[in-house]
């Protein structure tokens, strides 16, 4: 009785561990744009971690003699300090944008994690058990979809007041429906597969079946959705900040810099409006490009709207 599980051993030997990574690398190099996107996102992560060390000035430091300097315009002492200009309170726009990267990225990731975890759990439960549980969960999803999402978040944030935690939770909860719908559909499609039946016949519990047999097989589309979703959450965060509903007063965000540019537009202070918008666009564009590539790479069948 010394039989070893021969089959798994053989499969492992036939398919070396790094092949998947190599395939990813080759596909990335071939596609070019995703590489660029990855570089931009890498830079963003770098800024998020090392922002305080890199930023030329304290983002909230007001130097009133240096108000509203154009990019690269020397201040009264004849020094060029403000590479991207300064705002109405004499704060450095570049430093504010660097700090803003933190908020965008962290809010984007945290909200998607909350929404993804919540939505995937509910979707798998709905798809796995079916019946009235399914009905209830999906009806709630319909109701939430019927609410134009940004209005719902606006209302909740007006009631709760601004704050990073509030923002993350509200944006996160608002995302669950997307994940729930996909997770449910995928779960239904794998529920009857042989390997799930096999796990069940071997006496696996519901939790074991879901975690071991179902989740690994439905995760690809969820990852694809998540990367697009981070992009759209960052857009929403910018919108809410612009409306004055995001994070507290002393936290610089891209949306908030744009909101502050509002009174300066007629005076032609373009740099306050242009740079933070470019930062948002590059970030979101990179995430969208990466999402497109991930979709093609992980699951070519999803290649719907290319």
């Amino acid at each position: 009785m010394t039989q070893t599980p021969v089959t798994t051993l053989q499969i492992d030997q036939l398919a070396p561990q790094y092949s998947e990574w190599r395939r990813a690398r080759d596909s990335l190099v071939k596609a070019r744009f995703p590489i660029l996107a990855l570089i931009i996102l890498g830079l963003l992560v770098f800024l998020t971690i090392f922002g305080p060390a890199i930023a030329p000035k304290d983002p909230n430091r007001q130097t009133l003699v240096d108000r509203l300097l154009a990019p690269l315009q020397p201040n009264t002492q004849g020094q060029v300090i403000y590479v991207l200009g300064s705002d109405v309170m004499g704060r450095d726009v570049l430093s504010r944008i660097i700090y803003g990267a933190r908020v965008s990225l962290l809010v984007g990731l945290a909200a998607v994690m909350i929404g993804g975890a919540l939505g995937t759990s509910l979707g798998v439960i709905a798809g796995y058990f079916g019946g009235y549980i399914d009905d209830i969960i999906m009806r709630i999803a319909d109701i939430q979809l019927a609410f134009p999402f940004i209005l719902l978040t606006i209302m909740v944030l007006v009631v709760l007041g601004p704050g990073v935690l509030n923002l993350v939770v509200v944006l996160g909860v608002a995302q669950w429906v997307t994940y729930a719908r996909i997770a449910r559909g995928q779960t239904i499609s794998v529920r009857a597969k042989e390997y799930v039946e096999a796990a069940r016949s071997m006496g696996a519990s519901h939790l074991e079946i879901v975690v071991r047999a179902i989740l690994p097989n439905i995760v690809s589309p969820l990852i694809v959705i998540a990367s697009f979703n981070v992009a759209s959450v960052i857009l929403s965060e910018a919108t809410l900040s612009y409306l004055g509903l995001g994070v507290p007063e002393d936290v610089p965000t891209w949306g908030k810099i744009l909101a502050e540019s509002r009174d300066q537009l007629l005076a032609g202070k373009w740099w306050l409006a242009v740079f933070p918008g470019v930062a948002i666009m590059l970030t979101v564009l990179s995430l969208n490009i990466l999402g497109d590539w991930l979709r093609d790479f992980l699951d070519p069948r999803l290649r719907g709207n290319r």
Partner: protein
Amino acid sequence: MMPSIGQIETIHMGKYILRRVLQSFIVILGVTLLSFLTIHLSGDPTYLFVSERASEQEIIETRAKLGFDRPLPEQYLTFLGKLVQGDFGNSLRSRKPAIELVLERLPATLELTFCAMIFSITLALPIGIISAIRRGTPVDGGVMLLAMFGQSMPSFWLGIMLLLFVGLQLRWLPISGHEPILSVMLEGNVGGAITALPEAIRYLILPSITIGVFSLSRNARLIRSSMLEVLNQDYIVTARSKGLNQRGVIFKHALKNAMLPVVTLLGLEFGFLLSGVVVTETVFSWPGVGRLVFNAITQRDIPVVQAAVVTFSFMFVLLNLLVDILYVQLDPRIRLS
């Protein structure tokens, strides 16, 4: 006697519509429940309705007056009862009924949303089709890259850029202002509305582009991919092999089928555009519901925010119902499934 196929279809159709109406009703009930509960998220909603300097006495009076001391289910029923009569309470600032403020500004918002929709659909259609026909060419690549950019910009930022460069720099178009058409028409003055139209359009162009570009980009991509899918279908290949020319294939066969996914999205589209309205109206000082909501946000004027959110959601649900009913007329496969 056996019912004819036509009769069966009519029965199915009626059942389908009935089911959708019922669903919409449940959704609307859910929407009201959600907007009711939101107010209670902060614990005691009374504090949302009094000023920060309110005395203890004032707070207790307000709580009793607004019924926040009653049990929640009872409060919800009262809320529903008032809502049916369009009563969301008075604005905390202007003391006018909140719903009145919203309805006053609704025509301006609808004008804008409608124009944005026209802009996005009429351009998305030719762009998507050309891209699909010229698949893989630089034209296709360039258009799709632009669409990618269009989907990656915050719409209000695009608005700011248009305002800065087209409005202030080039001085081609006004950067704020509004010439009412819809409200004039509703008053019965159709002639007045028509004479006001050219001026109104000048004001509408920039905000409509601002709201519409995101949808335009998404729709163009969607139409392209659904067109590509249709062009590979057997019936298209058959039509081609029978000697039908390119134009015939596109317009007689492909377009009709490629439009289906777009029609489904129309309802959602409208809700989506409505959401974009809030922030775009702020950029262009458009006197609509969006700017009303923005001002209400900054003043924490809860009844106005609530009235606007519920009104928008109602419109959204009704429109989706309408679109779904129209959709089964277009695609009979759904009716019988």
